[in-house]
């Protein structure tokens, strides 16, 4: 028995790496480790004296769980360093209806997080929302422009046309891919025609992205994608990607439609 504690609490004389407490079913502390005594003032022998008032309900409500042999919860404890200190508590019951608790201090591990949050908050205070909103608006306009640069045109139930306008950039193909794949997915198209007649500059990244789109369209339709109006230079670049079986070049939309309707 410890001299300081004239109650039935006993000191558990093992070197445990974390504070440990054992309670009886009424919440009276019957056993404590050395670290538990270092962390908490145990002059009163009931657990409620070392748990923050607004955590006590939580302890009562969640301390027993039929489904889990060990329960885990965060509680604010009255520690020797501060009247509200966060701990992660692991609790389990034995046959004699005694609860063993291991208490892991959490404030330290949250410190890093808090510092990160603080710096975010500082940045927030400096954020110029006006600029921010303008940027958002611009991004929306740009995305809309991209969408318009690759409209999706259903020609018949089975045939659709995607004419590309302007430069082929990665961002543009990204936006177009999104809307095209959705439309193709929703319909039952067999022939997908992509018209390059109105295309200007072609960026490498743009073509890479385009090849991905081609392959996806091919998988979705099971058919060869028809490319129209492509300039020799762009055709050469595309040919580097070994796309036989995925796409074919056609001269013009007129030509494709003619062969289609004379079939």
């Amino acid at each position: 028995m410890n001299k300081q504690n004239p109650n039935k609490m006993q000191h558990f004389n093992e070197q445990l790496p974390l504070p440990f407490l054992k309670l009886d079913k009424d919440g009276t502390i019957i056993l404590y480790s050395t670290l538990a005594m270092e962390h908490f003032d145990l002059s009163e022998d009931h657990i409620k004296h070392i748990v923050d008032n607004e955590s006590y309900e939580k302890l009562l409500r969640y301390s027993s769980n039929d489904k889990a042999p060990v329960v885990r919860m965060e509680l604010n404890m009255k520690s020797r360093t501060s009247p509200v200190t966060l701990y992660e508590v692991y609790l389990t019951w034995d046959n004699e209806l005694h609860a063993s608790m291991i208490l892991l201090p959490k404030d330290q591990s949250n410190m890093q997080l808090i510092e990160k949050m603080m710096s975010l908050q500082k940045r927030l205070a400096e954020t110029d929302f006006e600029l921010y909103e303008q940027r958002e608006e611009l991004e929306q306009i740009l995305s809309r422009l991209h969408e318009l640069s690759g409209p999706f045109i259903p020609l018949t139930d089975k045939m659709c046309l995607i004419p590309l306008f302007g430069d082929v950039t990665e961002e543009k193909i990204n936006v177009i891919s999104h809307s095209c794949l959705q439309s193709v997915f929703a319909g039952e198209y067999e022939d997908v025609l992509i018209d390059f007649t109105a295309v200007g500059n072609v960026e490498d990244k743009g073509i890479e992205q385009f090849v991905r789109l081609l392959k996806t369209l091919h998988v979705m339709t099971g058919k060869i994608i028809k490319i129209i109006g492509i300039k020799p230079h762009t055709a050469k670049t595309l040919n580097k990607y070994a796309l036989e079986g995925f796409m074919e070049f056609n001269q013009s939309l007129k030509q494709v439609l003619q062969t289609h309707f004379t079939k």
Partner: protein
Amino acid sequence: MYCPKELAGYFLEGNTVKAWKYINEQEKLTLLDTYHAMITPAMQHIGYLWETNEISVADEHLATVTCDYVVSRLAHARLASPEKNNRKAMFLCLEGEQHYIGLKMVNSLFEEMGWDTKYYGANLPVEYILKTAEAWQPAVVGLSVSIVYHLPKLKEYIEELSKLPNPPVVIVGGRLTEKYDLKPYCSENTIILKDLKEMREWLNYEQTKSKQDAAL
């Protein structure tokens, strides 16, 4: 229909985009009502989730920054540069107090009414506030307190502020005002305000009174 749980969900995901979008999809309320009826209940729900062992304090941190973003952006979006009334107020949390979201709302609402404000946020030691208050001479100082153990400090702040050559009116708010009687920690002249509605009422009353005083 607005659902605080849904907003709380976006806060917990740290999803500023969805949180902002969700608020803007709702019926457009005043800044005060958006803070009072939408954001406050969402943060309280987060408190409930912690109490029911669903989330951890680490989750609350993420939710807090996300909420902070929304609170700040709302203030920016809804504050059409108001007519200045040439009155000054400063806002702070007591030393050690980290719960500043409510105070930030109050600061924006004062700005909306044309006040010139200084917002210090969390954890401001009393020496600092005394120095600034003496130099800047605000008409109102707003204090926020959420943790019970900080109450003794409240008394100290109020006493010290009352000793200034031009003592400001001290208003006190925060979670504890709803739960406890804070009068023992205040002076006779301290104004305790339970929520944002009470705050607006008091502010309206105070502004009429100060106009009348000026007219006399």
